[in-house]
């Protein structure tokens, strides 16, 4: 197989995969390095990459993070099942697409407008995108190929993505579970010992109780809070 779409860095403004002659896979098929293959073949290659490359990470997008549709619960459960079978896998979400300035917390989230920041900072060498709307997935995958050496897997509920190294189309929860089985099989073949463990929670979530937050907690910024009518603030930090 000739690898057409490969890990980067392909450089600033690389040719898009369609420009390199890659077409979306027909129904029932998948894409692997820009070639049409069976979903099983693409999943096996993706599984090996996730098992052998550094810091495998799953990037769930808005379509699986938010409870907007009946099948979300099933899909999100399947994604967590998959994540718990990949050794040291992390989950870094892409909750929405709004730009984050002046600075994004690269440990806590990934943004489609500059996904390379999260990937480079966390030294991620293999990742899975799932539940990201296609137009943003295309943008993100191409940027990752342009600026990083990360292996990308696109699990898409629609037609798949040419820019990813491995792209599975028409994804349902059952396909994610099948992918999980393949990961386990490949893991056993590689002789990697791993006990099913859920990925760690988001690192931006320190334990604090905001329900007891008082104006004094704002310290010197207290003056920025607008007092309620009749409120007299004497308590300062």
């Amino acid at each position, binding site marked *: 197989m000739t690898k057409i779409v490969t890990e980067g860095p392909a450089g600033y403004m690389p040719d898009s995969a369609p420009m390199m002659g890659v077409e979306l896979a027909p129904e029932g098929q998948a894409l692997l390095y820009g070639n049409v293959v069976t979903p099983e073949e693409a999943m096996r290659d993706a599984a090996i990459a996730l098992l052998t490359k550094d810091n495998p990470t799953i990037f769930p997008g808005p379509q699986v*993070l938010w*409870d*907007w549709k009946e099948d979300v*619960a099933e899909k999100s459960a399947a994604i967590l099942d998959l994540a718990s079978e990949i050794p040291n896998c992390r989950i870094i979400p892409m*909750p929405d697409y709004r730009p984050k300035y*002046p600075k994004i917390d690269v440990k806590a989230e990934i943004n489609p407008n500059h996904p390379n920041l999260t990937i480079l900072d966390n030294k991620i060498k293999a990742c899975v995108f799932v539940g990201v709307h296609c137009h943003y997935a295309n943008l993100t995958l191409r940027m990752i190929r342009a600026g990083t050496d990360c292996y990308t897997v696109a699990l898409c509920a629609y037609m798949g993505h040419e820019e990813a190294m491995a792209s599975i189309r028409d994804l349902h929860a059952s396909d994610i579970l099948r992918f999980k089985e393949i990961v386990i099989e490949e893991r056993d073949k590689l002789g990697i010992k791993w006990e099913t463990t859920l990925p760690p929670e*988001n690192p931006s979530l320190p334990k604090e109780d*905001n329900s007891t937050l008082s*104006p004094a907690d704002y310290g010197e910024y207290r003056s920025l809070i607008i007092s*309620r009518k009749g409120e007299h603030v004497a308590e300062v930090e």
Partner: protein
Amino acid sequence: MSLKYITPSERFKRYLPKDYVELIDYGPFGKTQDEAGPGNMGQFKELVEEHPMCSGCWMAYYIRLIFASLPKPEETVTIGTAGCGRLAISQAAVPFIYGNYGDQNAMASGLTRAFRLRFPDKTKDVITIAGDGGTMDIGFSMTMHSWIRGEKFTTIMLDNEVYGNTGGQSSGMSPKGAVLKMAPLGKDFEKMPATDLAKAAGCVYIVRMSPTNIKKAAKVIRRAIFVAREVGPTFIQAYTSCNIEYSIPTEDVFADAKAQEKDRFTFDEYMTDAAKEVIERVEAEEKAAKKAKKAMEA
């Protein structure tokens, strides 16, 4: 675009960044203005917090106020265009659409109509928030025509009287004689009469103001949204100074806004009878709901 879109799927909540968890738990979604509104800004998780605007930017404050005043943030879409404002507006936790070269009102026309067709049983608010250049210069024809067609959405003009984002060119809304970096000889024609144009074009609720009073400014924003839902186009021209291009020291920004209240931005509120009817009805309903809640608590 509905509460469902900001409800995390059960198993993923622990993987969401703190920012989002706080938005869900302490944000204004699905809450009343008393629980999370302009009256208690800073005491709940606001829709827009971080932004790359200049220090002392009065526009950033007003944008924060707009988002705190939204009657239904979970059912709202904002549309903006090139300019300083969209840098903050696009970062808010409310869907934002970027209109190219001042076409925000044309886009809002289509979006409002689409929402009414797609969700006839729901109330969706469309608000265009753009600068004076985007609304009255570059986007002038699209702004005017949306009003002439009677499109039901709210237009908010962040009037800083200059093209602040591109280095200080004079805009149609700059006052006559204003000397700016890219207009060193001073602007040689009068400030455009935006509210008069809005009236002539058929806006049913029009306000010109310098938003120094939070309660009043919030009330105006909400009135404009409520009227736009039922009657027709509404327009707010708000003074949001550019302290950089007009060289206003940061500590004097508020004093300048106060001064403008007595100058070019005297408070002027116009409404048609139909708009007045809606405002009176909605505000009476809100008052009754407040009273009922108080009685329940007592």
